């Protein structure tokens, strides 16, 4: 199966690969896995004033499409508010990367990773608010 040019481009030059400090209260960490293929993906966001995502990093162990999906996701969510980032749908990723049907689950994984990072950030904030 041939990868689209955009997938190849992201796989060869993935954006925002790396780690943010998990213990930082302004960092949300999303961890998702696809049992069907054994791929794992970690996506982290650093949220600043007004709920704006200042930085995003990812680490993905999986196929080219999974790497490209998470790379694109971090590019898209940087500079957005968490509410905006939450509206990103996997079909947006599918369309941008021209993913074939067998690789759609990779884009679902990236959408889940964004949502799970945001949920983690919100849970941290709620816990802090309660502690005060």
């Amino acid at each position, binding site marked *: 199966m041939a990868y689209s040019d955009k997938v190849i481009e992201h796989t060869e030059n993935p954006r925002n690969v790396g780690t943010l400090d998990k213990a930082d209260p302004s960092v949300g960490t999303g*961890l998702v*896995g696809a*049992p069907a293929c*054994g791929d*794992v993906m970690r996506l982290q966001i650093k949220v600043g004033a007004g709920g704006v995502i200042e930085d995003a990093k990812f*680490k993905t*162990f999986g196929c080219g499409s999974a790497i490209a999906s998470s790379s694109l996701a971090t590019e898209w969510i940087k500079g957005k508010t968490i509410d905006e980032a939450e509206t990103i749908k996997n079909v947006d990723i599918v369309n941008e990367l021209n993913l074939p049907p067998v690789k759609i689950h990779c884009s679902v994984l990236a959408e889940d990773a964004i949502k799970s990072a945001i949920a983690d950030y919100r849970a941290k904030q709620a816990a802090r608010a309660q502690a005060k």
Partner: protein
Amino acid sequence: MSLRDPFATFGLPPRFDVNLPELERVHRELSRAVHPDRVASSAGRKDAVERAMEVNEAFRVLRDPVKRAEALFQLRGIEVGETNEPKPPPDFLMEVLEQRESLAEARATKDEARVSALESAMRDAQKNAEARLTAALLPGASADTAKAEIGALGELRFYRRFLEEVSAIHDELLG
């Protein structure tokens, strides 16, 4: 997807811990018995072709631990597959991710000993998941008993992926 019981096709008890040499022996026997070339009439040949396909399909399921476990869950009416199974717990995913990171480092530094150490830890984890599946999927075990360990099936797929990566790295470091 066919709902035919692959264990019945092979005349074996529906257990997760199959004996692989035994499985291969039964496969050879059944394949010989149903070979279409042994049948003279064309109608008989059509039956034999179907039967041969059934035997091969059953063998494909039974020799693969993941497919074998899936079949044992399905025989109890439990749906499997990514959308039907519970999501892997975060602690488990964290562990897998960390192991994958260590493996990537070991690959980059060509540290064969470290690759082997990671491989052996993963094989232990795989054995543990397989033992849990064996216990939960014994003949006569209820659907509830089986379902309580469906997470072990998900784990097995991650371990398999990890071990595939390990064998690719071994090849790379040898070559």
